[in-house]
């Protein structure tokens, strides 16, 4: 899937990826790649503007962690982010159902 296919939905994908555990930037990309078997091709650098934006609106928080001789910024969902994720997932599923109705009739 081309990176443009994710246009406008990258933040939703990031929130969903952080649902279970805190992750650093590369870890988020790796999770997306692993979960979708490489189908979702994210332009990796564009993840960081999305993370900064999510942090600025209080949906994720971050902290530096040191491990294996390297400092890493780790991101995790806040309660606000968790609520936003639930709302956006519900909205997305409703949208997908509507689209399915139309696409399902296509020969």
């Amino acid at each position, binding site marked *: 899937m081309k990176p443009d296919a994710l*246009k*406008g939905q990258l*933040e939703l994908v990031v929130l969903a990826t952080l649902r279970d555990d805190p992750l*650093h*930037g*590369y870890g988020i*990309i790796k999770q997306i790649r692993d979960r979708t078997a490489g189908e979702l091709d994210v*332009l*990796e*650098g*564009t993840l*960081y*503007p*999305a993370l*900064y*934006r*999510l942090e*600025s*609106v209080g949906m994720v928080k971050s902290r530096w962690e040191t491990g294996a001789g*390297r*400092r*890493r*910024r780790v991101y995790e969902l806040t309660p606000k982010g968790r609520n*936003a994720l639930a*709302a956006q997932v519900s909205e997305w599923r409703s*949208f997908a159902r509507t689209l399915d109705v139309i696409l399902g009739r296509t020969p």
Partner: protein
Amino acid sequence: MNEATTIAAYLRRLDQELRLKRAPRQRLLAEAEDHLRTAVEELVGEGRTAVDAEHVAVARFGAAAEVARRFAHVAASSTAQAAIAWSGAAFFAYALTVSLFLVTAPSWLRDFPQGAPSMLALQIAAVALAVTTVRALHWRRALLIDERRLRLIANGALTATLAVATGAVAESLLALTRPGPAPWADASALLATFGLAAVLCLPAALVATAAYARASGLRALPGRHASHASSVFRDLTLAEDIAAAAPVLGGFARAALSRPGWTCAAVAASAFAAATVSQLIGTDFTDHATIVVGGLAVGAFEAAAIVVGFLTLGRPLGLR
């Protein structure tokens, strides 16, 4: 443009392209370096050479210009939201001050600051803020606002702030150049309130100007055009924004904004009638001709202001 293919060269290019303050810039560069080095380690573990792994990791990260552009978009979205808040605060502070003077000012101060400049400024600011707030409300849940709408929001915040600031300056100049002495000290508390409201325009204007510059600057940045409309099927017109913010007004908004010129003419005609009638009501008509001419002049001024405002600000505010 040659893209850097090694991590060190890429980070230098990213540093040049980013339009961020020092702290977030350093943070991003540290995160990007960690990201790229981790990717290289993994690729080398899969059997690639170190040089090849760096090329692949940098290519997957994306062009520095594109990453910088996305950051500029994030900054522009945040500044636009701040601009709406500041311009709203400036508008309400000034409107409240004018109301305060209207109710409590001594008779010698009755024409300040509620003269024509303030009334005109508040009307322009109210329209600009209403349009801008409707847009912001519709997109309040979107993390990034699409670039075209971002420019309209910045235009609205800047228009509202400049209108209020211009009104305050014009009223001050009129007051200071009025003939004869005035007992300013007798109304020091009221005047201090006016001063505070006027001063609030300064930070509001700075934030609105920054929002305008950042939103306009996105067009000049290299990289792909990145629209972040949350749905490709959603219409981008003001009528749809109004319908989303207040569904009950959707039909009216679509009808009114489908022919903006006619709607402007209808609003101007209504304003002419309302302003003229309001000038005539309550007068004792001792001099009919003067009163009628005066009322008609006020009505005509109001209608002309609406038409001129529509012609000059309609496009920047996305009304036509």
